[in-house]
């Protein structure tokens, strides 16, 4: 087989004549992946914490709603959810709102749909971690909080959540990594994130190996950065003298 390796291709100006190199394209893709993943992650953490807490409260109605939320987002493929947000949601909105959405910049449409989709999908998984974190606390902790005169919500805020959150840092790390990987699905609606730029590079440069290897390495690097960041977090929230759950 005669394949001409040419790593220099990344420094060449692109065929579109927009005064950028293929390396710039990759860099833009990386920026999009990071921006999308981080914004979706913040929403997912907040929503997930709320839903996870609701699953543990002694109120059938509230915990039922929270359970339904989690089951809904866990049992539909991410790609289908993304298409539902991007193609279906604007049609189901009230007409003026739907039209307003459809008239915005397509990049904004793609980004918003992707962000909402990833955020809600991930929030259901975060909620499961939060719930299992709370459930793994010794049951006496809740009683101790209540016995001091804390209300239930104060007990959650000051006693149970601070500990539960520390316990679930490792599984949250893997959800955080997942959101970066899952963001690649958003290339299917045309969002130019890292994977989509990789495909575009193949088309434009005719150097498929270099393009895909570069993109794959970029994902590996992202992975390493996120993991070391979370390890730092883990070390800094560690409670002195505390040795694990029940």
């Amino acid at each position, binding site marked *: 087989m005669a394949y001409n390796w040419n790593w220099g291709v990344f420094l060449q100006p692109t065929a579109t004549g927009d005064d950028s190199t293929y390396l710039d394209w990759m860099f833009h893709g990386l920026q999009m992946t990071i921006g999308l993943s981080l914004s979706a992650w913040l929403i997912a953490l907040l929503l997930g914490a709320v839903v996870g807490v609701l699953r543990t409260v002694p109120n059938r109605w509230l915990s039922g709603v929270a359970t339904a939320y989690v089951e809904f987002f866990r049992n539909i493929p991410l790609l289908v959810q993304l298409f539902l947000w991007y193609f279906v949601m604007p049609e189901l909105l009230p007409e003026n709102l739907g039209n307003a959405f459809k008239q915005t910049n397509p990049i904004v449409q793609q980004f918003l749909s992707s962000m909402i989709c990833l955020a809600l999908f991930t929030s259901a998984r975060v909620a499961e971690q939060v719930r299992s974190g709370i459930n793994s606390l*010794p049951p*006496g902790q809740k009683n101790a909080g*209540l016995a*001091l*005169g804390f209300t239930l919500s104060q007990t959650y805020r000051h006693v149970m959540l*601070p500990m539960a959150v520390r316990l679930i840092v490792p599984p949250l790390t893997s959800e955080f990594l997942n959101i970066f990987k899952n963001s690649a699905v958003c290339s299917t609606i045309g969002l130019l994130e890292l994977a989509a730029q990789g495909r575009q590079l193949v088309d434009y440069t005719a150097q498929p190996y270099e393009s895909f290897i570069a993109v794959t390495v970029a994902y590996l690097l992202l992975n390493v950065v996120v993991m070391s960041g979370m390890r730092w977090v883990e070390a800094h929230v560690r*409670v*002195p*003298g505390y040795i694990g759950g029940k």
Partner: protein
Amino acid sequence: MISMNKVSKHYGSFQVLADCTTQVQKGEVIVVCGPSGSGKSTLIKCVNGLEPFQSGEIIVNGVSVGDPKTNLSKLRSTVGMVFQNFELFPHMRIIDNLAIAQVKVLGRNPEQAREKGFKLLDRVGLRVQAEKYPGQLSGGQQQRVAIARALSMDPICMLFDEPTSALDPEMINEVLDVMTELAQEGMTMMCVTHEMGFARRVAHRVIFMDQGRIVEDDSKEAFFGNPRSERAQQFLAKILHH
């Protein structure tokens, strides 16, 4: 101070408490004992509403615990409780464990709360540990902190739920000493414990429970002198031969 009238509780068909009736006067020290599963822990948790009950009535300082209109958080802030497994908050320093409820529940200012916390740590002999985390203390030390934490709320009475049964034998006395001192100062106390030496030293009355019922409710002298029920006699014999 505490009065219970025909308190009953069941899980499904399993009777946990059956018609429990008793009174605790101000300044009285009551020891509750009985075999495991006799309902003694459940009974004491009903006093501050940590365990709901289906029928009967509990009045603490004039407030009905079972009444849905009662502000349970407010009631609990006046009743101190000490748990079998200490239940200090592991993510807070010792001094913050003592201060947080004073600030968030009683609305004291943080400086005063810490001041009070230090005083109480002094009292249980642990001032030097104030800046440590619970996991860095021994079990006996943690339980003394837990007692100090309950006292920081200026409770009108104290509930102890097997405060020494999770401790290594050599640490039991340091905790009992703190409790004895409290009793001698006139604190109203209800203690679930198997420490019969403690009961002999400081209790005014002893309640013996079996299968969810209060079987004996006697002065200390009467209980240790000659318990009327056979179950209590067997129980005492086992404990003493321990």
